[in-house]
């Protein structure tokens, strides 16, 4: 890892002030997003395996399809997440009369995604440890015809002690690394859109804090 990349994590203000002078490039941000997407896809593969196991009774032989769908979904969703986050930051920063291009915002968001790769790796390791402990219920054909029963089965799956622990750990890890990314994005948006630190903090902080609170709420009602 080049010193430049390390600067993203520990000195984002300096990093983005340097990037500001250079021409915008999405190559490295896209690679970062791709790396995060691959890690997410592996995680999706593991979790998709659980879903496939749950559906084994009603759709025998569909396990591979479910697993591949989960992998592809995780990979694609990472890129969609990149675009959505960049779009939100761009729109909100426009309210503060931000000047930079959308590509520059995309670049910033891409660089700022770097801590989440580490978060995803930790999540992946946790999943590898916990998934064998999860008792996966199997849906029957009769159960599939009863929506209440499907809900009950899903609840039973989500409330499995190992599954609950995994969810709690991954959520907290995600929050930690998302907030780290938010910290980076504030400096990035500040430089990319020519905003004051306060405006940049609002542009990034408000949506991210709202999202984190939503994650916390979901964790609470689980």
């Amino acid at each position, binding site marked *: 890892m080049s010193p430049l990349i390390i600067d993203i994590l520990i000195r984002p203000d300096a990093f983005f002030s340097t990037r500001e002078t250079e021409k915008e490039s999405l190559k490295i941000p896209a690679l970062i997003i791709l790396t995060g997407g691959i890690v997410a896809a592996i995680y999706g593969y593991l979790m998709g395996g659980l879903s496939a196991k*749950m559906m084994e009774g009603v759709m025998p032989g569909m396990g591979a399809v479910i697993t591949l769908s989960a992998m592809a979904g995780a990979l694609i969703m990472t890129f969609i997440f990149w675009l959505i986050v960049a779009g939100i930051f761009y729109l909100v920063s426009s309210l503060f009369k931000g000047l930079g291009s959308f590509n520059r915002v995309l670049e910033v968001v891409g660089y700022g995604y770097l801590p989440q790769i580490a978060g995803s790796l930790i999540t992946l390791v946790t999943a590898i440890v916990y998934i064998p402990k999860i008792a996966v*219920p199997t849906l029957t054909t009769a159960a599939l015809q009863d929506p209440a029963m499907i809900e*009950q089965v899903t609840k039973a799956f989500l409330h499995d002690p190992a599954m609950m622990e995994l969810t709690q750990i991954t959520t907290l890890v995600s929050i930690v690394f998302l*907030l780290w990314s938010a910290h980076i994005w504030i400096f990035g948006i500040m430089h990319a859109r020519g905003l004051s630190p*306060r405006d940049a903090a609002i542009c990034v902080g408000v949506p991210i804090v709202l999202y984190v609170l939503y994650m916390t709420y979901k964790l*609470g009602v689980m």
Partner: protein
Amino acid sequence: MRMNHFLAIICLLLFCILPGIALAYSTPESIVASGNVYVSRIVYDPGAFFTGDAGTVTIYVTNGNSNQSVVVNHATIGDKNIRLISNPYDTSANIGPLQTQTFIFSVATDAFEGVYYPTFSLSFRDADSLYYRAMVKVDNTPLQLTVLDKPDAFTQGAKKTIYLQVANPRKNNVSSVDLDVTGDGISALPEQVFIGDLTGGGTVPVNITITPEKATTVLLTLNYDNGDNPHNVTMEIPVAFGVDKKQANPVMSNVQVKTDTGIYDVTGDVNNAGLETANTVMVTALSPAVPQDPYKTYVVGALKPDDFGSFEVTFTAGPGNTTIPIQLSYKDADGNIYNTVQDVKLTSSGVSTTTENSDSSNLLPVAAAIVLVLIFVGGWLYYLKRNKK
């Protein structure tokens, strides 16, 4: 002269007749011959009379002379206890050498129980009479109807078997024995059992099944003929509903409830704590549970007394159901079905309890998440405040 002729003719006639009269009276030879005539056999039908019965007596008279016939001209039997109800023999009959002559009489008796000796008398033409005491027994002992085994209690609509024995304690045979089963509110199978002849001292087992619809009394009537005289014996068996002390009593134990995919899986043991075999023991869940594959109904099979078997039933239960009735059914030897129901508590492995646990277990991560957000927000507020200055 004419008078003399008349007297002479009379005297001649008397002279001619007298030797003839002398032939009808006993002679030493006829007396000896009659002494060889004897009663060789007596047969009463029935062999023993009830007081009031009528019957027949057949007397076999044998001429023991090898070369001389005897003429008999009157035969009768009876006394004040054994009354002759047919006519006596009043005509002459010749019994050839070594021949047997039968004399059949109809008799009746109103005497009490005991042994009686009516006299048979036979008059010889050429000798005195023969007298013979023909022993007969008056015995009022009836046939016995005995209950060998029956249920301690009956159940409405349930078929139960009563094991009976018909015994003939008399010395003589009886005939046309049949057993009638009647009663209000019962269904008997068979309603009539024909046994036929029953020898003296003999026994016959009879089984009947009763299906009562109400508490009642079963009337058993044993009809039979002693000779040609009909008799009967009756017996009443009360049919009371209750719990049979010996009946099979399957009991569930070691019941464990697990849940998987919303389907409850109940396992346990069934012990037969009764004294009879429980056949075709089956276990299933009742409403509000909805039995599901693979064990909608579990057939444990036959359980002998003190025997046990395991069961497993699977079902779904709607939310809010904390207990589910589990039905245990079995059949007795007669095929009657008995059901017992035991409530099984759905354990904490259920979803609802897990949800309750999640409230407390989620508190710590939620608090941690809030702290992280506060650190982030607080940190940035501090940073902004410091940079502003």
